[in-house]
């Protein structure tokens, strides 16, 4: 069992092209810090100083964590976390 983490297209360079990786349960910020150990560089793209960057949203299942407990939102085994950055192509 693990947390399913969806990686958006713009960050897949850092996950060897994988669109889904496994994460560890805990708070959202600890999950991201742990991801950074396996995929160096992904942490600083997503967060800065322990805060999620303002052009990226994190969803726990389909809920925006800013309206749960933000970076401290608890993520459990079998939850699905989606990282959704602003994209701009047209």
């Amino acid at each position, binding site marked *: 069992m693990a947390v399913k983490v969806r990686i958006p*297209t*713009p960050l897949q360079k850092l996950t060897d092209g994988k669109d889904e990786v496994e994460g560890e349960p805990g708070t959202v910020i600890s999950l991201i810090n742990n991801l950074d150990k396996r995929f160096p560089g992904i942490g600083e793209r997503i967060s800065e100083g322990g805060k999620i*960057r303002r*052009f990226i949203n994190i969803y726990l299942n389909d809920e925006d964590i800013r*309206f749960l407990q933000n970076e401290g939102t608890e993520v459990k085994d079998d939850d699905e976390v989606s990282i959704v950055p*602003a*994209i*701009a*192509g*047209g």
Partner: protein
Amino acid sequence: MEFTEDQLQRYSRHIILPEVGEKGQIKLLKAKVFIVGAGGLGSPVGYYLTAAGVGTIAIVDNDNVELSNLQRQIAHSTKTIGEPKVESAKNTFESLNPDVHVIPIKQRLTKHNILDLIRDYDIVVDCSDNYATRFLVNDACVMSKKPLVTGAIFKFEGQLTVVIPGDGPCYRCLFEEPPPHGVLPSPQGAGLLGFLPGVIGTLQAAEVLKLIIGTGEILKGELLIYNALKPSFRKVKIPKNPDCPICSDHPTITELVDYS
């Protein structure tokens, strides 16, 4: 208003649909839509709105057609390489449907011109290719209370939502500010599957048509995410941010910002 014989034939598939009917078709013919960008997304948006008989379509873009655009920008053609994209698109759209009045605007949108340019339009469709314009368009739509249908694409992924100012969240409720330069890969250097703007742009056109006709549910308060490789469509919620810098009742942005 009376339909001509040609119009009755041209729009017959709309008119026989109870959800559209003659009433809906008249609304379409009287509607005025403003499209930001005549590229990958602007092409199918403009094409389908033209085919549907949207009466007035303004399209703004400052670029000329290049050969490398033609892999996806279907409003243009080999014959129009080097021409302003807005002129190329106008010719394409008007040859599809002469009922439609296409207004080409060869300009870059700025904080100085956007409010004046969109003033006379009912709906704005964001088909732009950069973060600065996306935030500018959102803020201008919130300030002038215009519905905004925004779509974006990257490589093989697309995003789509509708902003109805005063009734739900805006784009800044979703993303508070653009990324600093270089933090996320730029769409220009990344490549793109050619049909992707067709999928997202066509969905944008669908939202515009529903807004005009006044039927169905509008994709507001949710972000639709399409991944062409999976393939999957999924939606996440966009809660209204009570501290949104532009659309909350205590905005910190009170004039337009130029991020470019």
